[in-house]
C-alpha cells in the first residue's frame, strides 16, 4: 500500500459525504443523479483500496460490476428525467409533490 488504509478511507468518505450532500441539497434531478455518481465513485475507491489491502482481485471486479450497474441505472434514470421533463417541463424535484401525506 502506498498510503495507510485509513487515509484512503477518509478520502472515500469525504467523497461519499460530498455526493450525499449534493443529493440532499440540490433540487435539480440531474444534479441529484450526479451526486449519486460521486457517491459510487467513492465506493470504487474503497473497493480498489481494499482490493489492494487484501491483495485480492475480487474488489476490482466488484468495481467493474458497479460501473455496469451504474451505467444501467443512469440510463434508466436519465430516460426518466427526459420523460418527466416532457410531462412537467421541469426537472426540479420540488414540484413533484402531487402525492403526499
Amino acid at each position, binding site marked *: 500500500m*502506498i498510503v495507510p488504509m485509513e487515509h484512503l478511507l477518509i478520502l472515500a468518505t*469525504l467523497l461519499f459525504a460530498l455526493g450525499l450532500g449534493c443529493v440532499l441539497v440540490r433540487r435539480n434531478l*440531474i444534479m441529484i443523479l*450526479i451526486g449519486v455518481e*460521486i457517491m459510487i465513485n467513492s465506493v470504487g475507491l474503497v473497493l480498489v483500496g481494499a482490493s*489492494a489491502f487484501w491483495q485480492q482481485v475480487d474488489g476490482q471486479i466488484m468495481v467493474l460490476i458497479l460501473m455496469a450497474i451504474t451505467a444501467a441505472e443512469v*440510463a434508466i434514470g436519465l430516460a426518466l428525467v427526459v*420523460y418527466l421533463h416532457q410531462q412537467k417541463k421541469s426537472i426540479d424535484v420540488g414540484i413533484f409533490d402531487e402525492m403526499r401525506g
Partner: protein
Amino acid sequence: MIATLMFYLLGAVALGATVMAIIQRNPVYAVIYLVKSIFSLALIFYLLGAPLIAALQVIIYAGAIMVLFLFVVMMLEVTPTNAATRTAPGWFHWGPVLLLALTLVVLTLMLIGLDPASAEGVPRWHASPRDFGYALFKEYALAVKIISFQLSFAAVGAFHVGTTERRRARQEDVS
C-alpha cells in the same frame, strides 16, 4: 514516496473538483468538474494497483456515463437562463478549472514516467489484466451474464420510458 505524495495530491484534486461540481448552478459545468474528479480517481486506482479499472473508469465513467449526462442536459436545455450566468465567465470561474486541469495533466505525465513495479513504496501486488480476466470470466462469469441481462433490460426500460405518446399510439394502431 512519490506515489504517496501523488495520492494526496490526486485526492485533493478529486475533492476540489467534486466540491466545484456540486456547487455549480449549471449542470454542464458540474459534469465537466465531475469528469475531472473521475480522472483523478482513475489515477489513484492506477496507483493502487488497478490499471485496468483505472482505464475502465476513464472509458466508462468519463467516456460513457458523463457524456450521457451531458447529452441529456443539453437536450433538455436545463441550463440556468438568467443573465448573470449567461455572461462570459470571468477568472473567478476559469481559475479553479484551469488550476485543477493543470495539476491533473502534470500528475498524469508523472505517472506515465513512473514504473509502478520499480517505484519506491508502490506495492508489488497489482492486478494484471490476466488475473483480472481470469477471475472475471471464471469465478464471476455468472455475474457477467447477469450484468449483460441487466444492461439489455436497462436499454429496454429506457426505451419504454422514453417512448413518446405519439409513437405509442402508432404502436397501438398496429396491435
